[in-house]
Every structure is written in C-alpha cells, then in structure tokens.
C-alpha cells in the first residue's frame, strides 16, 4: 500500500479529468465549440507519449552503461506503452480533426511527423524481433532506440514549427495557452497531463513485472 499512492493518485486524477472534462464549463470558441474538451485527452496523451519515450531512451542509455538485462526490459516496455499512447493520440486527434478541420487526416506536418515517429518505433520493434541472442538484441536495439529518439525530437517539435501547420503553437499560430484556455480549463488540463503520464508508468510497470516473471519461469 505504501508504494501505491501514485496509482490511487492516477485513478483520482483521471476520474476528475473525465468528470470535469465532460461537465465543466468551457469557453465558446468558433469552429472548436464543444470539441475543445478533447484538449483534456488528446494533448495529455501526446505529452505522456513524449515522456514515456524519453524514459525509454534514458533506460537504453543506462543499459549501454550497465549491461543489466533489466534496464533493457524497462526500455522496451516504456517504448511499447509510448506506442500505445501515440496510437491513441492519433485516434483522438483524428476524431477532433474530422470536426474542426473537415477531414480525419489533413495534410499537416505535425500529423505526418507523428506518423513517421510511429514508423520509427515500429521499426524498433521489428529490429528487436530479428535477433535470437538476447544480449545482442538488447545492445543493438538500445543503440537504435537512442538514435530514434534523437530523430523523433526534431520531427515532432522543430519541423512543424517551421512550416504552416493547423496545430496551435506551430507555423505562427498561437498556442492554446495564449487565449483559448481560461483558468478553469487549466485546472483540468494540467492534472490530466500528470494523470495520463502516471497511467502510462503504471501500465509499463505491470508489463515490466510480467516480463520479469516470464524471464524467471523460462530459466
């Protein structure tokens, strides 16, 4: 119980997010209308994904330094959860885009960047699948994971800001924070970011424990 306070916190925050996300007051914006509520779900999923992938890269670096199989296990599970979050982020974004921009997949640099990032991490999983030797797999996929994260950052955060993008905060568009979100929305949005990230860590923790048990059973 002592170590599970953050799980209770995650459940509490997400319950709060779902309730106040649906029921709370939101400013009336043209075009966006009620769909602005998606900001509580879509944006935190992307924030969560970035955090998870960063953690995965950090554990890959730690693996290369230490050579402990456990670090590799943690790195791959963080990447897995990051991919799930990315797919969910794509799905929520697609729904949102359908209502506000008129089509589920508009030709937008940020969307395409996100799609390429998904390809990058699928390639990581395929690379892992092509080795039989565990140590070799761990070392080489750690190298690729670090490399992939270094490409992921400019792809998502730098390139879209240079071109015209429909997303707020890119291509000279103002970010949400500037005047779309009022303080009431922020009271839901910031906890939502923390809540979804905690949820991601929780999923990862369960999967890491599962894979540790599997490793022991196989021995």
């Amino acid at each position, binding site marked *: 119980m002592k170590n599970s306070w953050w799980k209770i916190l995650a459940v509490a925050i997400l319950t709060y997010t779902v309730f106040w996300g649906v029921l709370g007051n939101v400013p009336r914006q043209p075009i966006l209308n009620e769909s602005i509520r998606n900001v509580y779900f879509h944006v935190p999923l992307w924030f969560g994904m970035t955090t998870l992938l960063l953690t995965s890269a950090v554990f890959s670096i730690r693996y290369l330094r230490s050579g402990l199989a456990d670090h590799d296990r943690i790195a791959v599970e963080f990447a897995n959860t990051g991919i799930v979050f990315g797919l969910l982020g794509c799905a929520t974004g697609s729904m949102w885009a359908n209502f506000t921009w008129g089509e589920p997949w508009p030709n937008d640099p940020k969307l395409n960047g996100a799609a390429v990032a998904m390809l990058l991490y699928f390639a990581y999983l395929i690379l892992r699948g092509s080795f039989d030797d565990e140590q070799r797999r761990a070392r080489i996929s750690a190298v690729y994971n670090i490399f992939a994260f270094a490409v992921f950052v*400019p792809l998502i955060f730098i*390139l879209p800001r240079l071109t015209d993008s429909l997303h707020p905060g890119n291509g000279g568009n103002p970010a949400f924070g500037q005047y779309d979100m009022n303080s009431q929305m922020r009271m839901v949005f910031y906890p939502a970011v923390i809540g979804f990230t905690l949820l991601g860590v929780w999923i990862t923790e369960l999967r890491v424990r599962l894979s540790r048990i599997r490793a022991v059973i196989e021995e």
Partner: protein
Amino acid sequence: MAESVRQLGALMRKEFLLEWRQRYALNGMLLYIVGAVFVCYLSFSARRGLLTPIVWNTLFWIILLFTAINAIAKSFVQERAGRLLYYYTLASPQQIILSKILYNTVLMLALAGLGFIVYASVLGNPVQDVGLYVLSLVLGAIGFAVSLTLIAGIASKAENSATLMAVLSFPIVLPLLLMLLRVSKNAIDGLDRSVSWDEIGIVLAIDAIVLVLSWMLFPFLWRS
C-alpha cells in the same frame, strides 16, 4: 592527434582500395542509379519537359534515396567478420565509423553527381539556380552518408538485413529528406538564396546531431 589523423587516412585508403579491387560493386551502384533514372524516364513516356518541377524534384530525390540506402547498406557486409575484428584491434571504433562515413560521403557525392547529370540530360533541366541545387546535392550526400552509416552497422548485425536496412532508415532519413526537398525546390524556382538559409541550417544541425550520436554509439555496436 597527428597519429589519429594518420590512422584515419590509412583507413580511408583501405576503403578506397577495397572498393577499387571489387569494382563490380562500385560499377553496380553506378549502373543502379543510371538504370533507375532511365526507368523513370521511359515510364513517363520518354517525354522531356512533361514533369512539373515538383514531380521532377521529388522523383529525383526518391531515386537518390533508394540508391543511397542500397549503396550504404553494403558498407559493413563487404568484409568478413574476422577481418572486421582485426581492424578493431588496430584502430579505435570511432576512427572506423568516421572513415566509413567519410568514404560513404565521397561515394554518395559521386553517385548524386552522376545521377543529376543523367537525370537532367534525359528528363530536361528546369533548375534555375544550379549553384544552390548542387549545394543541396552536396548537403544531401553528406546527410545520407552520416545518417545511414550507423543504420547499416545496426542492420548488418541482424539477419534479413536488406529489408531491415530499408525499414530502419526511412523514418530516420525523412526529416532530412523533407528539408532537402524544400531547399532544392527553392533552387528550381530560382528564389533568392536568403530564403533557403533556414533549411540549410536545419540540415546541418541534423547532420551534426546524427554524427555525434554515431560517434558515441558505434563503440557499443561493434562489440557485439
């Protein structure tokens, strides 16, 4: 310092000698790009000036991308594992990756140059600012060589390395490719060069990031 530069020179010389002695591989690459260009030319019903500048440019860069992936994929499979092990006892892994990158840059420059000449002569040349276009080719050759050499190292360690090489490198090369497409499109339209400085800066920044990462990560790769 002088010692390591000398070692680097020796490694580079080895790469060139190896390529020269196995000329069929080099000729194969040259024929590959010429053949690809010709296939595209015939597929567009062999008519010049039919392609809009955007299609012209994109097609050329895609040919170049596939050529680069094929050319660089062989940089670690040409030599047998035992011989690679012998090199590692002689030189540091950093020097080996650096010599491979430099060699691949020269190779890509040659391939891109030849490709551009053939492509422009059969499909027409709409480029208005040839100087800038050549600069984008040089940047592209450096960028492809830098980012694909480490990937080739990774892919060569796995089975089924040809597919893996393509799958791993497409997303890695994409940001670079998009920037290069933009610079070269500016060159085709003959826009003022000051418009392209931003993109050129980003290409150089991506190259620098990838180069530093290759330098740091390769020692972990060769040990396995």
